[in-house]
């Protein structure tokens, strides 16, 4: 494997878009995360609904995960 025959690595997502993606994904993620926390703090044993908890937290973690990924890429930590 010599270096001339290798292709230069190109990111699947245009790096100029990293900031915008970060803000959007993290924004949505933080919104859902806040919703989840407020729901947990203000609900009692009787009013808590498992499906609502699971769905909100799933959406929150998916968006937060991708948001953090693009945040790291934007800042220069190329994970």
């Amino acid at each position, binding site marked *: 494997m010599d270096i001339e025959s290798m292709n230069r690595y190109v990111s699947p997502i245009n790096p100029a878009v990293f900031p915008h993606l970060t803000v959007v994904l993290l924004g949505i993620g933080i919104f859902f995360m*806040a919703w989840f926390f*407020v729901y947990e703090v*203000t609900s009692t044993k009787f009013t808590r*609904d498992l499906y609502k908890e699971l769905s909100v937290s799933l959406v929150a973690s998916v968006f937060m995960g991708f948001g953090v990924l693009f945040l790291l890429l934007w800042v220069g*930590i*190329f*994970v």
Partner: protein
Amino acid sequence: MKTASGSWGPQWLLRMSPDKQDTLLKMMVLAIAAVLSFSTRLFSVLRFESVIHEFDPYFNYRTTRFLAEEGFYNFHNWFDDRAWYPLGRIIGGTIYPGLMVTSAGIYHLLNFLNITIDVRNVCVFLAPLFSSFTTIVTFFLTKELKDAGAGLVAAAMLAIVPGYISRSVAGSYDNEGIAIFCMLLTYYFWIKAVKTGSIYWGTLCSLAYFYMVSSWGGYVFLINLIPLHVLALMITGRFSHRIYLAYSTVYTVGTLLSMQISFVGFQPVQSSEHMAALGVFGLCQIWGFVDYLRSKLSYEQFTLLFRSLVLLTGTIAFGAAAVATAMGKISPWTGRFYSLLDPSYAKNNIPIIASVSEHQPTTWSSFYFDLQLLVFMFPVGLYFCFTKLTDANIFIVMYGVTSIYFAGVMVRLMLVLAPVMCILSGIGVSSILTAYMKNLDTNRKDKKPKKPDSSYPLKNEIANGVILIMTAFLIMYTFHCTWVTSEAYSSPSIVLSARGGDGSRIIFDDFREAYYWLRHNTPEDAKVMSWWDYGYQITAMANRTILVDNNTWNNTHISRVGQAMASTEEKAYEIMRELDVGYVLVIFGGLTGYSSDDINKFLWMVRIGGSTDRGAHIKEMDYYTPQGEFRVDKEGSPTLLNCLMYKMCYYRFGAVYTESGKPTGYDRVRNTEIGNKDFELDVLEEAYTTEHWLVRIYKVKDLENRGA
């Protein structure tokens, strides 16, 4: 459960129950405060680069790198032969490892997750990260002392207070960065333990105390403040089983844990700084026992037993303490802490402690500069604490009063004062705002105008006015803090910048230039002599052996270096041959106008050099003119004009034009033309001078080939 797919926007926010609004608001404010505290510390990273600042952080960085590469056992047993030549330094046993272990832990965790952040970047950004944590802990602590509203104000104030920012800016990789977090965490758990009296919180407090001991020498403050608090509670008659339980747990478990740190060792049972804690522990046990007896015995039996026992134990304890101190089993207060109680001690006896600028007493303007609004709201908070005195409030009052005293004695301890100022001011501001918000007239539709209260005219207007003024104060506080952070506390010290004549920025990177020259152009085992300020930077960046560094643990060795700098070339050559010195490094600011150079520090070198017996021939008065001035021009004292430091700084400087209209060899810091211009060096030869003449390196010449 209704899902929120219907109404969006502000109506949705208002339709939430008050409970949810409350939680959301609290979370938002806390999150914003935490992010703010991180971002406000990033000025120097944005203006220069992600680099470690100052001097001490370079040592911490070097040890962290060693720990990350070699592992904990090698780190714990590390004997460094590249510092304090020929003595060496036992690093494993003479540092507080908390900071290094935390950084190395974070580094390994991130790399395990394949987020590849370099050790240097972990070190640079650790202090801002921990300041975010500190903001959150302050909220919880103040919530315990007053209520959540005060907690939010205190957290917001702590995020930007300059007194804390000065030692925790990005790049300032020093113990205080995590020590303040550990300290407030310990206090939070202590307050919880005092309020609940449970062993659970007491043990958590001990664990937090262990973390504090591992991170900073200032843990002595904690181990004296907590017993003082217990004593105050005893005196005010608030001692109860909760306090007994809390303190017994914290003292025993905490002391045992603190002795696991090698640097602390057996000090908690041997040194006077820890004796107050032991004394109060004994007193706690006696008091608890007395209470127990009182509940079991009759009144007459009890008083007889009580009086005789008190007399007996009192005499025994006093006698034991006196004998132990006399025999030397209990060591007296160490110099650094003793100078806090007697500020003149260092000036008269230990010039090294007196010469550090951080150890000077604080000026009035420093208090305002570092704290602004908090200085005025601090007494207000104290007042509100006294109106509703609880066990926890007594603690914060004592913390405030003691730290004000210590911050007044030593400017470095302003750092310890900043959190308590924020907490008490938070309590003050929150109480004022709550009190006046209640008076506000919120009838918007004017359906039923409230009948004006005859005993309190203009209630609504006054409330509006006070709240407006308070808001204005808080806004001014924010502007001040951001300005101070940006202008005063964000300089890396290792890279300087100035504005050129046409407004462009000139960067002075001379220090790193010189250290990397040393790294690439000198033999691996070369020994470099410089003043102790630069020791840590030389070992970390140039990777060469040095004679003295910032640890300043051996005054005699530093005095020897001072003698070499202050003597003539021949005498200095003897000292340099004795210590195997290969290169000498000096900092010279005369060309650029950099005022913290070695000529300005020279008098301290003379004082320290003359303070031991081998330097008895060095007298400070010889270096002044007959009129008593310190001058470097033709009027200067001949001893000064011929000493090694002078010659090293001004070699070839006599031929340089520095300012238009001035003669050659014009020193821009001392603002005079130098006295001794055309001279040659006999025992040194110039090895390297950096671009702006800031750092000058000389090679020590070998002995003559043929004997004299």
